[in-house]
């Protein structure tokens, strides 16, 4: 997740996990953004359009990380 909004530089990284879990829990994305205080559309699109692919990369990296040290 990007730390800051690409356009205005506002902090958005810390809102990602709450946003994701609440939207996955069935809440309306727009209302979640409102309650998180993300008012500008540049910051809103950061959260709305983000796709976290790190979990998939981690799945792949499992095979290459040494099991024990």
């Amino acid at each position, binding site marked *: 997740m990007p730390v800051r909004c690409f356009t205005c530089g506002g902090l958005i990284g810390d809102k990602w996990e709450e946003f994701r879990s609440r939207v996955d829990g069935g809440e309306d994305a727009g209302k979640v953004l409102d309650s998180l205080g993300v008012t500008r559309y540049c910051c809103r699109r950061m959260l709305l359009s983000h796709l976290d692919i790190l979990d998939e990369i*981690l799945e792949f990296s499992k095979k290459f990380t040494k099991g024990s040290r």
Partner: protein
Amino acid sequence: MEVKVLEAEGNSVRFILSQSSPAFANALRRIMISEVPCMAIEDVFFYENTSTLDDETIAHRLGLIPLTTDLDSYVLPEECECKSEMGCSRCRATATLEVEALDGRKTVYSGDLKFDDPHIRPVSDKIPIIKLEVNQKLKFEAYAKLGTGKKHAKWQPVAVAAYKYMPNIRINLKKCDACRVCVDACPKNILQVEKDVIVVVDPVSCTLCYECVKACPQDPSAVDVSWDDTTLIFNLESVGGLSAKQVLFKATEILKKKAEEVTKKLAVKGGKQT
């Protein structure tokens, strides 16, 4: 010049700057964006990184984390007496982090950074830096330094620093028949009907879109929208390292110093010529 604060909420401030000029407001705006110093991580030394992201990517993410800034205790590295590339206790704060995922996938947060100076810490402890798979390890030391937005956007203390002219909405009551068309056309709901007369409720919210002027069925339009460029509505939102108030005060201080420098140089030049 006069300043009237409209709203001050958390990190954002909205104020009216009257008896001023766009040139002054723009000078203030540009200084806030590019010349007010704030703290950000600048150098990172990796001791161990077996994660999926490379050192540079992690260092970049670390740099973007806004840090609370103590402008009284720190100086810009360029202005520091130490003249050292690595910096000294006057111009840098050190943070360390050592995390290993042992039991399962682990997210490393900004809150895991341990700073030597208790006054310097991330604005939020919940910013994810990276996720680690089991047995992956991350260990580094990071130096946070003061800097300005001129050099890198990570040192920009404000997210929003913008101003607009004070709108001036006049309704020609001789021509207006209170047909409500302009009231419905306004996207900001600034106009209202009171006792069969159109009144302007909240002129500060006007975006000067002219929808009301265009919507009026009268020809020429009974609504007239203009602006006053000596009164400016300033909108300021800080990222969190410095409060919006601190940013504003520091910006005026810098502007004053610049103006004094110019007058001093002009005086010297004038003295030589005559």
